[in-house]
């Protein structure tokens, strides 16, 4: 190999390779620091109309002087900057992303092709309804598909993501109870819940009461029976719960609530374990949200916004956000006049581009395909559980579904905590699992492979975890200082949280 052909950051001394400088791709300055006055990444045609002074045309008070020092770079500099940054990223397109509770499944390219269909991608929200029939039909189709999957009667597509869906759902419950004469005061939430559940209840004006999990990780029926009074508006439950365990008593839970006039809200974050197999509407759920960016393969953050549709039983339908889709014959219109509606929860009609992707996913799979995906997701998680059970402590032994939660009990005796194991996993080329959640497991390692992974990838993940378990025994200090194979070594999270620097200054 000639010198030119080598990675320029390395030089050969005999058989020893040493770093001479940090490679460009590993050390990227901020765009602000690359700025040089007058550089441009765009070209505009020559002005063919008389120039106008902005201050004169718009009023001097509208010309902002305080925005200065915007970065000025050339096109290739801008492109290289962001391309280099993108190589620091970990992505589902790069490897397994076992972040529990997040359902980091692959986003099929067909979704992107469909979302770029001209008539959908270029539709304007103010386009007349008569010229938006295709888009409205996409929404109608998706509402129907989601209602069918959930076993519910009606769906709103407006909420922008899961927590927004939760709030919408609880506001629907409040609206119904208010109409019945008493909104009630409390919402019950199991101690294994996602943190957004109590936040939702509080924002909707309810007091939160915690229910402790039973020994098998489920809702304790005796405790529930005691807690459900005429003050309780609803129980918010995640099923399967954050341990990945299906709530076997869910029908009984619904009965206890309904008997006292309370509602059952289901957090649909873990629907990837149920789609095509079981329907929440059939086991007593009154209202629930879905995360299209989890279960229905639309991008998580970065690549696009989320979507958190809410599905309800008939009794809650009058309260759904406006506008509602209405079909008369062949024509679809928006219905804004619904006197019991809680009103809009989002501008326009939800994150439409995401809705298109979710529908593409559903139609590409079809019913049997969705069911298969669910079974594969559960199979993968159970396979990981069986392979790692000899090496990591499993505090809840109930059969798990789409995810599995270990504890760091054995490793922490050697001084290595779940966060250290996660950092070491980065060295093996995997995104970490979810660390320290759910809170009911001491030092949790929460692993969700999803149906995306084939056996090869899962086996190499398992081998990495087993190797790290071994390293915890032989060289715990090494694991505690991980990662090593990354651009940045272990960051000081504590100082970053205690003394955050929130603003870049030159």
């Amino acid at each position: 190999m000639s010198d030119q052909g080598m990675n320029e950051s390395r030089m050969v001394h005999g058989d020893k390779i040493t770093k001479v400088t940090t490679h460009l791709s590993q050390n990227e300055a901020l765009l602000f620091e690359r700025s040089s006055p007058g550089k441009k990444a765009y070209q505009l045609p020559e002005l063919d109309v008389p120039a106008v002074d902005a201050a004169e045309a718009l009023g001097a008070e509208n010309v902002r002087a305080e925005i200065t020092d915007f970065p000025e770079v050339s096109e290739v500099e801008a492109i290289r900057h962001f391309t280099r940054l993108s190589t620091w990223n970990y992505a589902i397109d790069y490897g397994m992303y076992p972040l529990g509770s997040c359902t980091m499944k692959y986003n099929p390219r067909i979704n992107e092709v469909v979302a770029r269909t001209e008539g959908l991608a270029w539709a304007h929200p103010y386009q007349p309804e008569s010229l938006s029939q295709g888009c409205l039909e996409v929404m109608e189709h998706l509402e129907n598909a989601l209602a069918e999957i959930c076993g519910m009667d009606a769906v709103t597509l407006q909420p922008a993501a899961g927590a927004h869906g939760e709030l919408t759902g609880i506001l629907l419950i409040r609206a119904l109870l208010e109409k019945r004469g008493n909104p009630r005061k409390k919402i019950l939430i199991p101690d294994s819940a996602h943190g957004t559940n109590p936040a939702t209840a509080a924002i909707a004006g309810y007091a939160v009461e915690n229910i402790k999990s039973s020994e098998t990780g489920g809702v304790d029926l005796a405790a529930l029976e005691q807690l459900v009074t005429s003050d309780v508006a609803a129980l918010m439950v995640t099923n399967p719960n954050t341990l990945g365990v299906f709530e076997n008593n869910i029908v009984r839970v619904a009965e206890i609530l309904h008997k006292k006039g309370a509602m059952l809200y289901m957090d649909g974050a873990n629907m990837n374990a149920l789609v095509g197999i079981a329907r929440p509407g059939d086991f007593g759920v009154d209202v629930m949200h879905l995360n299209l960016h989890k279960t229905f393969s639309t991008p998580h953050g970065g690549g696009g916004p989320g979507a958190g549709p809410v599905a309800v039983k008939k009794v809650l339908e009058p309260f759904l956000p406006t506008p509602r889709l209405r079909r008369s014959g062949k024509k679809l219109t928006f219905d804004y006049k619904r006197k019991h509606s809680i009103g809009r929860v989002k501008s326009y009609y939800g994150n439409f581009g995401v809705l298109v992707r979710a529908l593409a996913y559903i139609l590409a799979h079809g019913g049997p395909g969705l069911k298969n995906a669910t079974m594969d997701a559960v199979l993968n998680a159970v396979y990981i559980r069986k392979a790692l059970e000899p090496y990591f402590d499993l505090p809840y032994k109930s059969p798990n579904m789409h995810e599995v939660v270990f504890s760091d009990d054995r490793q922490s005796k050697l001084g290595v905590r779940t966060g250290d194991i996660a950092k070491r996993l980065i060295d093996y080329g995997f995104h970490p699992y979810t660390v320290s959640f759910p809170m009911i497991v001491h030092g949790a390692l929460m692993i969700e492979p999803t149906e995306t992974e084939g056996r090869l990838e899962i086996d190499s993940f398992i081998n990495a975890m087993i190797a790290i378990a071994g390293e915890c025994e032989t060289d715990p200090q090494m694991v505690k200082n991980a990662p090593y194979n990354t651009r940045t070594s272990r960051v000081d999270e504590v100082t970053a949280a205690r003394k955050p620097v929130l603003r870049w200054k030159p």
Partner: protein
Amino acid sequence: MYPENYRYTKEHEWVLADGDAGTIGITDHAQQELGDIVYVDLPKVGTHVESGKTFGSVESVKAVSDIYSPVSGEIVEINESLADAPEKLNTDPHGDAWLVKIKLTRPEEIQNLMSASDYQSYIGAEK
């Protein structure tokens, strides 16, 4: 480790009471479980709190945890020094890093709380 004259809750707070004057903090076990504490949210002086209800929260790099009041009463002083030095909760949770001082409205509530030895066997069993 756990002062004999303190009383303890299942939610890992302690209270030191003398008549109707009380001091509340979190236990050494709590700070260990939370890990490095980065922020403390305390109520305003004059706030009325009920025993068993939350009056603030402690945030660590891992999680945000509610603080449950061991007793009922009115907050008469808060530990301002924790705003700039939350790490004191990791080093001296039973002393310098007390959270609030409270005027007890029902001093007899102290009787419902655990003694130091009861608390130690409680956290032993919890583990």
